[in-house]
């Protein structure tokens, strides 16, 4: 990257976008019958785009911004869970997409699973191991939301890459 100012600004914009999307998601009414922690993961579209097309460090920055936002709006437990989930899933997505050459669907589903796994691990430490009871459901929901994110990115990426190329 030539201009580091432009780079930092771009990362900032992406982080802001991710936070806005998680904010939007918080406004959605909770779906009855769903276990706590099951979310659509709209902002993951941004996280994944950053990990794939911008770079590892900016992607981690976006994840941290999301975690900080969750910490401010939903408290310490949610903040810790979101940060752990975000960082771990970003790492996995970056690895799969950039290093191991997985497709968008696979990387996205793996990212969602990694997010859930890290969240559960934190929840386990902070509350009780009873939350593990939800694990199978979370795996299925995570895969589903990962597929959705991957599909959305499949549609959004080509125009975004053109933009970035300019």
């Amino acid at each position, binding site marked *: 990257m030539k201009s580091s100012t432009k780079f930092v600004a771009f990362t900032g914009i992406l982080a802001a976008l991710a936070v806005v999307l998680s904010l939007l998601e918080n406004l959605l009414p909770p779906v009855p019958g769903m276990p706590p922690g099951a979310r659509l993961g709209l902002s993951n579209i941004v996280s994944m785009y950053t990990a794939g097309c911008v770079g590892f460090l900016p992607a981690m920055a976006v994840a941290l911004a999301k975690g900080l936002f969750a910490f401010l709006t939903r408290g310490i437990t949610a903040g810790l869970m979101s940060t752990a989930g975000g960082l771990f899933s970003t790492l996995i997505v970056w690895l799969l997409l950039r290093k191991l050459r997985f*497709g968008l*669907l696979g990387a996205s589903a793996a990212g969602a699973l990694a997010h859930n796994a890290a969240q559960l691990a934190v929840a386990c430490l902070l509350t009780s191991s009873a939350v593990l009871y939800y694990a199978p459901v979370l795996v*299925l929901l995570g*895969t589903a939301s990962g*597929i959705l994110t991957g599909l959305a990115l499949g549609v959004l990426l080509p125009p975004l890459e053109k933009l970035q190329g300019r």
Partner: protein
Amino acid sequence: MKLSLSSAKKWTVIAAALTILLVAILASQLLFSQTSAGYEATSWAMGSYVQQTLYGGEEEDTATKASSAITELENLISWRVADSDTEKLNSAAGTDWLELDERTINVLEQALSVAETTDGAYDPTILPISALWNFDSDEPTLPEQEEITSLLPYVGYEFLRINTEENTASLRKHGNGVDLGGIGKGAACDTALEIYQESGIDGGIIAVGGSVGVYGSKPDGSAWRISVRDPEGKAEDGLGVISLQEGCVSTSGSYEKTFSQDGVTYHHLLDAKTGYPAESGLVSVTVVHESGAVSDALATACFVLGIEDSLPVLKEFGASALFIDEEHHITIAGELEFEQISTSYTVSRQSL
């Protein structure tokens, strides 16, 4: 290697289909195992732990209805509940006839019928004496002999009169009192069984303390199996199992509520003739009858009467019973399917 868009779609569809199939199989298994396990509900009423297990139909709804009907019944027949029918009847003792709820009259009538047949071995008018001992409280007390002697004349089922046509009842003398504690749990089972029948579920079992009622059939069609508790609490699985297709089982055991004073242990099964805990050489009596109320009252009566004098009473009511005595012997009277588990008791049968 690169995949075309169409084959990518194909793979996605296959993966999705496999996932959905897996979920469907697992979900159906979960659902299946839940229906065969039945619906369980627990609550507290009549000073007891209430346990229901229902199979097939509107299980949850039925359990809730039965549970609230039992609470309603308790609020009608418990003398401790302010404004209950029984409390009103006791306050009005020695004055006038009172119009009461049909359900209260029904229980009073069953209580009176057992009292008359057993010549007061079970007596619903025991309250003056039972309130003295206060076994239902945390701190039962040993009454003075004079207190018992002075209150004993006020106990007698003949003081209780019922008019079933007008749903009225009265106690003849001031100082009389009705305590339906010995019949309430069985009556609660009857109430639940009635609701099971109305709601059209396939089968259900209710336990209110030591009284158990069964209705309909289990998913596998086998008989209901009810374990008889070991009075000494040693045999984990109980003494044995009574198999039942329908009806109710109630047990009166001297081990249920006790206290000790000066080296003597007193239990709650009072003999209305003496005003003291009954001494018939028995530890517990379990009675099977189609009516829960009758089985509950008969269990108390048979405990007071002892084995010998119980037999004609059981025959009269068409009931069967299982007696456990202090000599570790089990006597089974009447048609009763009993499978022994604990070997520390001997068993004999007695025809009615």
